[in-house]
């Protein structure tokens, strides 16, 4: 099945690379994203971008935005462009198609987030390096890796589920935009708080046991990912997809 999953990923990657003139994907979109998140924001933030726990919390949601931008297309797009039935008439198993689509979306979101993160580290060290190499602590690095992956998987499974049920790409995008808005409300609201409140929040976060928070987050996300994946597997039925 692994080979079939890679086959689906290969096709998805080809489509992502050439699609979307509206810059929500494609090579240009990826480059713009990496430039902003991997260079601009780290340089504006300075060395605290590496040392502050806020980076980990903020960065963990970056894959959500990325995956969200492409996953609506996974099944709703195939259905809309009348390619789904031919795919379902092939020798590929249900699981291979589902996991291939999911893996492609996760690889896209997680991969771009990690590339941006590494670029950010390089940018910080280039601009602010003073002898020693600035890098995340081992715990923070592990936390970022785990959280970004699980968030990408969360966005992927949620998006796949929405895309399976949606009658069009537009409908899937609208539903996922609402989900993204709900998830990002705390991040969007943060700059609107008074400066004293922001400072208090940063002090509060710095005083928390980050290990416990990250571990709790990982467990919660893992549970949510598994639940959404099971729901997507139950939803994926060839006859149902053809008749929808």
């Amino acid at each position: 099945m692994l080979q079939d999953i890679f086959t689906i990923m290969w096709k998805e990657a080809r489509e992502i690379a050439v699609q979307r003139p509206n810059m929500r994907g494609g090579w240009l979109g990826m480059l713009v994203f990496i430039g902003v998140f991997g260079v601009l924001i780290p340089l504006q933030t300075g060395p605290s971008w590496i040392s502050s726990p806020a980076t980990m919390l903020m960065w963990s949601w970056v894959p959500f935005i990325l995956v969200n931008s492409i996953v609506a297309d996974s099944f709703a797009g195939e259905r809309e462009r009348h390619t789904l039935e031919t795919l379902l008439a092939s020798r590929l198993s249900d699981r291979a198609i589902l996991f291939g689509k999911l893996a492609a979306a996760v690889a896209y979101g997680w991969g771009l987030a990690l590339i941006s993160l590494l670029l950010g580290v390089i940018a910080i060290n280039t601009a602010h390096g003073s002898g020693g190499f600035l890098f995340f602590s081992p715990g923070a690095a592990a936390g970022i890796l785990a959280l970004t992956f699980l968030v990408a998987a969360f966005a992927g499974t949620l998006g796949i589920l929405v895309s399976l049920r949606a009658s069009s790409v537009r409908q899937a995008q609208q539903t996922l935009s609402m989900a993204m808005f709900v998830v990002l409300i705390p991040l969007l609201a943060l700059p609107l708080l008074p400066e004293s409140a922001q400072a208090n929040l940063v002090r509060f976060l710095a005083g928390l046991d980050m290990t416990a928070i990250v571990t709790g987050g990982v467990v919660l996300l893992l549970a949510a990912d598994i639940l959404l994946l099971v729901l997507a597997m139950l939803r994926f039925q060839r006859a149902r997809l053809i008749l929808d």
Partner: protein
Amino acid sequence: MNSIAIQTQDLTRTFGPVTAVDKLSLEVPAGIIFGFLGPNGSGKTTTIRLLLGLLEPTAGSAQVLGYDTRTQSDEIRLRTGALLEFNGIYERLSAEDNLEFYGRVWRMPAEERRSRIRELLTQLDLWDRRHELSGKWSRGMKQKLAIARALLHRPQLVFLDEPTAGLDPIAAASLREELSQLARREGVTIFLTTHNLDEAEKLCQQVGVIRQGKLLAVGTLDELRAQASAPYLEVLGRGFTPEMVAALRSRPEVADIEPGEGRLVVRYVNSVDSAPLVSQLVAAGAQVEEVRKGKASLEEAFLTLMNEELSGAS
């Protein structure tokens, strides 16, 4: 290899109150092009979906290449190719990438994949344009590409759902010709649905006629024509008298005669030797200039079947 490619027994599929396929019992021999004829909405596409195991039958059963559609649909899809109602081409990918993807889906080794893609695209005159985005192609070119995709992995059986639908007459004729050549070369069984009788006449060795989910007739084209109307003889000449016509009518093999100006149309009960009949006319003094044997066209046969079904239903 199994000599029967497709076998169905009382295959039925309903969607709520609508019966899309109604107790379909059919046998399609391996190695032929089988035409499944019927008007729009007659159940042709649902039949293909049932045979591919994409839909579960409500009742009855079907075996494709010896595999049961309910329990072994994976085996069926492994050994078949399909061009369904829509061509299923990824328009954001190049023609070559479309085939490359499906070559990988069928786990063809890289070298075989490349040579097969080249072979098919060359045969279909698409090789030089293989790097172009298929979305920019004409409908006819996309259909050709979809046929190449269906044949790519050398399947034993190919389902083609209205392959020339929506094409202009020139593109349709060209596609038909290429399809016929490919089928001969590949030795593959083709199950082709169409409502284009000309297409069936040119391509198919056997046909089945379906209407409102019911199979009305199945057989070779000649059998279908014979079922609709007996063969006839058209005699052109002079001196056909009423006595000659009456004498011919008395022959047991003659069903009816339509006399006309310098022309007689003799309808037989069954297919028979026409020489004695012509000899009788000449012996009676008629001047025969030309004799033509005729058969009902497939269109006539099709319409007769449809009308019979309609009058039966009413």
